[in-house]
């Protein structure tokens, strides 16, 4: 009896996930279909003749460059987030400094602000600083998404590390900075990786910053490229879905590798 219930729950769970993630399946499978197959009145749930022409089409159409740009923007923003957020989170967890609570509040509040509010002023500022049409606009602004999130997650993590670790290191003659680099960073590695991954996702998904600060198409990430392609490709859904599949691929790969840690990190970062 117990076994039967277990079997039923598992099947029910799988059925739900299959239905829920059907859109993702549909995206990938459409990318391999021919144009005429998409417009048949009865949908096919597996391509009748599997073809790769859509992928060849989009790579002729600059997708390689967009992909590289997405990587550059998300990669640089992630590095910036880590350089800023890891020491800051550690300091806010360990040191008794003035204005600690207002600073933590600052990170909490900035996480909730809409991008639209900073868009117009930053456009004017970046224009004056000649930062429009460079990688810097999206890199700097995307990092503002990852910094508060990472500071808050990592601070909670650092609070949980026993102080004796650092005390032992300082007896061995390590300065504060060396203790941080040699002792703290290595043991925090899993949490830091989660923050890096999430900051990468935030920046990878950005459309509005790149679109606003960069009119130069050679600097566009995949999201801006795909938005622009919607108009140009019209109803060539197989090409658009191939474009979408390529854009989602890195996210899914990172997710599969880090699934367990990510789920845990997301929970602790959003509640605390």
């Amino acid at each position, binding site marked *: 009896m117990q076994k039967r219930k277990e079997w039923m729950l598992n099947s029910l769970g799988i059925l739900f*996930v299959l239905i*829920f993630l059907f859109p993702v399946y549909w995206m990938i499978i459409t990318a391999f279909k021919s144009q005429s197959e998409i417009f048949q009145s009865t949908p096919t749930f597996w391509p009748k003749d599997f073809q790769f022409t859509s992928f060849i089409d989009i790579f002729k159409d600059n997708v390689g460059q967009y992909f590289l740009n997405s990587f550059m923007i998300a990669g640089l923003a992630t590095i910036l987030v880590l350089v800023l957020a890891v020491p800051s989170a550690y300091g806010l967890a360990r040191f008794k*400094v003035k204005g600690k609570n207002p600073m933590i509040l600052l990170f909490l509040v900035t996480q909730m602000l809409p991008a*639209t*509010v900073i868009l117009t*002023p930053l456009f004017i500022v970046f224009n004056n600083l000649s930062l429009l049409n460079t990688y810097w606009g999206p890199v700097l602004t995307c990092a503002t998404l990852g910094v508060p999130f990472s500071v808050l997650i990592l601070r909670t993590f650092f609070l949980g590390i026993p102080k004796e670790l650092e005390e032992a290191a300082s007896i061995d003659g390590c300065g504060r900075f060396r203790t941080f680099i040699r002792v703290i960073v290595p043991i925090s590695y899993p949490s830091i990786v989660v923050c890096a991954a999430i900051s990468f996702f935030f920046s*990878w998904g950005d*459309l509005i910053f790149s679109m606003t600060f960069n009119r130069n198409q050679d600097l566009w990430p995949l999201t801006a490229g795909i938005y622009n392609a919607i108009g140009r490709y019209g109803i060539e*859904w197989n090409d658009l879905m191939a474009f979408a599949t390529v854009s989602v691929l890195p996210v899914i790969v990172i997710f599969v590798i880090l699934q367990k840690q990510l789920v845990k990190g997301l929970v602790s970062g959003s*509640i605390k």
Partner: protein
Amino acid sequence: MKKGRWGEYLFIYPAVIFMLLLIGYPLIYNIILSFQDVDLNSLATGEKHFVWFDNYKALANQDGFGISVWNTIVYTLGSVVFQVVIGFLLALFFSMKFKLASFLRGVVMISWLIPLTITALLYKFMMGSGEGIFNQMLMGIGFIDDPIQWLSNPDIALWSVIIANIWVGIPFNMLLLSTGLSNLPEDVYESASLDGANWFQKLFKITIPLLHPVLLVVLMLGFIYTFKVFDLVFVMTGGGPINSTEVLSTIAYRLSFNEFQFSLGAAAANILFIILLVVSVIYLFMINKDEEA
């Protein structure tokens, strides 16, 4: 000793200064901007004046502004209510201990991680009136006779975008509520079972009251994240047809970067900001109270 202090500030301050420069400063600049008359012309000449509340008055008379406020509210409430209810039911389901539960719960997160631009495009495709799979399936099973104009009928379009948003938000709500459920004390359920309570009684008399604080946090967070929606609406409908899906963030963007009326756009963004600020303050007050209790 004094040197040590400096070291401490060097750890903390770079991130704080970064956020103040890239968020704090623009925020204040945006408020000033909304009281001036900056457009593409004055941006080039540098000549600008304070017009105080003229932008806000102009905004009130702007075509589509009123409806964008209303749409933002409907969009947010519609999305959040369904996300939380569905997310809660799924959290309850996955909290039953079976082998694949935590694996499956994790896999669902994929929908939350996909860039919103891609999700928007995908739903636009599935909601196509002829070739879209939604209509093909619904007509295939005889549920409807004529295709639904998901995105081109002004009466339906907003709800179509809400459907996409619910799909994006379900996993996150489920995850937070699952965590809340796993922290509930088990002995209460055991004694309730001994007293002969059934599943519904346990749900409404124990689970929901105990989960109350977590539910509130999830509702508020959902509100805050949904209220500032941009990408989904922008890519799926661009605010159309005839303003039927226009929300505050898309109208602010359009005013600033399609019509280059920067001050008017700033004013619209400010209204979005003020509403969010109020909700955020309530939220922060709530979680603070929880921690004290």
